[in-house]
C-alpha cells in the first residue's frame, strides 16, 4: 500500500539542506580552529597549513584533562543519586499512593516549567550559607533538587504503565515493598532509567548557569561552565577559542555518536513527556 509520497528528490534535497545548515557552524569552527593562532581567518576556508597543534595547545591551556575530570565528578555526583531518588519517588507516587495524594505529584510537576534563573539568586546565598560555595557540591546538590520534577514525572509515567497485578503477585510471593522495588520493578524499568540517565547526563555536562554563578574556579566547574572563563581569557584568539570549544563539545558528541540510538530515543521522549 503505497501512499504517494512527495517527490523523493525534493524531499532528500530538503533533508540534505537541513543537515548542511546544521553542520555549517561546526565546520566553520573547525576551519577557524585550524588557522594559525592569533589570526582572523576569513570565514569558512580550509587553511593552507592546518594547525592541528592548536587543539593540543587549547587542551593544555584550558587544562582539559582536569576539566574532563571535573565534569565527570560532577556527573557521578549528580546523576546516580538523582536517578535512584527519582525512581523511588516515581514508584511511590505511581504504585503506593491513591488519588488523595495527587497534590504531592502536582507539586513536583509545578517545577517542570521553573526556569533555573528564578531560584539562582537564593541558591547562591543558600549554598554560601552551607559553606559549599566554589566547590563542586555547589553544582551537585542544587542540580539533584532541580532535576526532581522531571525525574519524578518521567519515572512515575513509566510505573503507571506497569500492570498492577505484578505487584500483587510479588506481594503473594512474600516480597516487601522494597524487595519488590529492587527485584521486580527496577529491572523492568531499565529502558526508562537509561533514558533518564542519558538526559540528566546531557543536562549536567552542558550545565552553564549554576557553575558560572556558584563556582569561581573553572577547574571546579563543568566543561561547559569552564567555556565561559575560557572565552574571557582567550576570546580574541579565534583559532584557539574555536579549537577549545570544539574540544569541549567533543565528549558529548562522541558519546552521542556511540549511543546514538538511545540518545535520540531519550531526547524525543524527554521532550514529549516534559
Amino acid at each position, binding site marked *: *500500500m503505497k*501512499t504517494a509520497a*512527495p517527490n523523493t528528490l*525534493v*524531499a532528500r534535497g530538503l*533533508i540534505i539542506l*537541513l543537515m548542511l545548515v*546544521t553542520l*555549517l*557552524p*561546526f565546520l*566553520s*569552527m573547525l576551519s*577557524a580552529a585550524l588557522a594559525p593562532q592569533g589570526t582572523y*581567518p576569513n570565514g*569558512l576556508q580550509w587553511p593552507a597549513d592546518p594547525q592541528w597543534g592548536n587543539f593540543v595547545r587549547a587542551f593544555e591551556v584550558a587544562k582539559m584533562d582536569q576539566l574532563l575530570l571535573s565534569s565527570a565528578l560532577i556527573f557521578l555526583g549528580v546523576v546516580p543519586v*538523582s536517578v535512584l*531518588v527519582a525512581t523511588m*519517588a516515581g*514508584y511511590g507516587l505511581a504504585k*503506593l499512593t*491513591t488519588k488523595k495524594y495527587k497534590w*504531592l505529584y502536582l507539586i*513536583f510537576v509545578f517545577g517542570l*516549567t521553573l*526556569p533555573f*534563573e*528564578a*531560584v*539562582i*539568586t*537564593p*541558591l*547562591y*546565598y*543558600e549554598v554560601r550559607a552551607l559553606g559549599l560555595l566554589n566547590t563542586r557540591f555547589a553544582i551537585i*546538590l542544587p542540580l539533584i*533538587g532541580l532535576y526532581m520534577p522531571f525525574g*519524578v514525572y518521567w519515572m512515575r509515567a513509566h510505573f503507571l504503565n506497569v500492570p*498492577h497485578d505484578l505487584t500483587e503477585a510479588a506481594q503473594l510471593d512474600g516480597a516487601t*515493598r522494597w524487595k519488590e*522495588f529492587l527485584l521486580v520493578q527496577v529491572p523492568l524499568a531499565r529502558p526508562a532509567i537509561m533514558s533518564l540517565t542519558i538526559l540528566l547526563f546531557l543536562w549536567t*555536562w*552542558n550545565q*552553564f*548557569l549554576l557553575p558560572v554563578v556558584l563556582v569561581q574556579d573553572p577547574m571546579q566547574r563543568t566543561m561547559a561552565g569552564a567555556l*565561559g572563563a575560557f572565552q574571557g581569557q582567550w576570546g580574541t584568539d579565534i583559532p584557539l*577559542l*574555536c579549537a577549545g*570549544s570544539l574540544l569541549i*563539545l567533543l565528549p*558529548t*558528541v562522541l558519546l*552521542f*555518536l556511540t549511543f546514538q540510538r538511545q540518545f*535520540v530515543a531519550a*531526547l*524525543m521522549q524527554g*521532550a*514529549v513527556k516534559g
Partner: protein
Amino acid sequence: MTETPSSVPGTSKPTRRLSPSRGSRKATVTAWLFIAPAALAYAAFVLVPLGMSICYSLLRWDGIGKATFHGLTNYITVLTDADLLQIIGNAFQLVLYFTVIPVALGLAVASAIRGQMAGRFGTATRTILFLPQVIPLVAAGIAWSWMFASTGLVNQTLKAIGLSSWTRGWLGDFVWALPAVGIIGAWVLLGLCTMLLVTGITKIDPSLYEAARLDGARPWHEFRYITLPGLRQEIGVCITVTVIAALASFDIVYISTQGGPGINTTVPGLEIYRLAFAHRQVGLASALAIVLMVLVLLTIAPVQWFTRDKK
C-alpha cells in the same frame, strides 16, 4: 442461539480494581519513605529557594548589608521601568525566532520528508539533526559568534552572492543583534522540532491521506486537515520546549553578546544575574525572577490546554 461458553450477558466492564494501596497506615508510611528523598532534595533546592526569592523580592537588599522591607515596589519597577520592559520584550521577541522558525520550518520539512526517514539515511539524518541538542548551548553560542563575526561565514556568504553591502558585525549591531541571537536559538532547536514532527507524522494513519486523495484533496488540504490536526500534540510539545528556551535563555546570550549592544539583547535571565551579582540589587533581581516564572507559566498554560490530549 448456538451453544456458547455462556455467561449472563452483562457489561464488558473488567473487574473493578479497588484502591491500589492498602490504605493502612503501614502502606502510607512506606509510600512516604520512597518519596521522601526526592521530596527533600526538591524542597531544599527548589521550593525553599523559591520561597526565598519571593521574600527577597519584597526587600531592598544588596546581598551583604541590611535589608529593608520594600513591599511591592520591586514589582512595580519591573512592570514600569522602560529598560526592564524592553528586556522582557526581548525575551518575547526571541520566542519569534526560537519557536516560530523551528515549528514552521519543521512542519514544512516534516510534511515534505515523511516516508524518507527509513534505513541508514534516516539514521544519519536523525544523528546530524540532533547534534545541536547534544552540545552545550554556550558552544553553540561560540560557534555562531564566529559565524556572525566580521570575517565570519555569514558575511563571507553575503559577499559571495554579491550582497556585500549587507555585511556587518551582526552581534554588535543595534538592530540585528537580537535577531542574530534568535537565529542561534532557531538553529539549536530546529533539528529537535523537525524530528519530533516527523515522528508524529509517521503516527498518522496513512489511510487518512488516501481517503483524502480520493475525495480530491490537494497537498495543501492534506496538510491543513490531516497533518496539522494529527500533529497537535507534537506541535504543543515543540512550542512548549521552545518558548521555555526563549523566555529562560541565558547561556546563549551570555556567551555571544553579554546582553549588548546596550540592552538590545539582554534577556530576563541575564538581567537577573546581573542585577543580583553585579549591581547588587537582590530585591529587584528576585522580583524579576518571580515575574519571569509567572510569565513562563502564563505563556505555557494556554499552549498545554489547547494541545492537550483530547482522547
